[in-house]
């Protein structure tokens, strides 16, 4: 079968973008990569039933779009992190507000009697139990 072999300059093309491009071709070709000096050697062997006519050009075009994607992702990294951070922070704070909304609007109201000392609580209980036993 027709094997297509060509080289890419590794100073221009990143290995990550080559991997991404290869991934797009894996269904149609058997791909072997090698590196000699500063060149990445790509060899594509078409699987049965596929014709390798415009493959090299197609591969290079796909590579270009992956490079562009990579560059955009790099440029937008901080913005994306900021947006995700904001989204997570806002959802987390609303959950906290919701929780406090259920428990009571103010912690000073102390609905669970957390601020009352243990002795006082015990006295309250014993008084209650005393009343019950009298009944």
């Amino acid at each position, binding site marked *: 079968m027709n094997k297509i072999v060509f080289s890419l300059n590794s100073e221009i093309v990143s*290995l990550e973008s080559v991997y*991404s491009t*290869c*991934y797009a071709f*894996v269904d149609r070709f*058997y*791909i*072997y*990569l090698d*590196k000699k000096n500063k060149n990445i050697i790509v060899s594509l062997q078409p699987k049965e039933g596929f014709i390798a006519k415009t493959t090299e050009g197609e591969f290079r075009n796909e590579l270009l779009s992956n490079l562009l994607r990579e560059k955009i992702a790099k440029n937008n990294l901080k913005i994306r992190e900021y947006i995700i951070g904001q989204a997570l922070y806002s959802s987390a704070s609303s959950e906290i507000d919701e929780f406090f909304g259920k428990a009571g609007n103010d912690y000073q109201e102390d609905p669970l009697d957390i601020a009352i000392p243990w002795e006082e609580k015990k006295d309250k209980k014993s008084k209650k139990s005393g009343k019950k036993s009298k009944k």
Partner: protein
Amino acid sequence: MILKLNKEIYPEKALKRAIKFYGKVADFRLKEQKDYFLVSGYLEKEDAELVKNEFLNFVLEVIRQ
């Protein structure tokens, strides 16, 4: 079957994962030789080419993951 894979392109971790996955197909061995990893495995002549090619593609997929 012997595959010569450049260390700068094929990470060892991905190769080991692929070898583990292909363990049912053949008994692969991984060796190092300067800038290359050597993957060797005994296969019938008829199957060798296909398995070799599929293995290479699989390694690329593992790298991408």
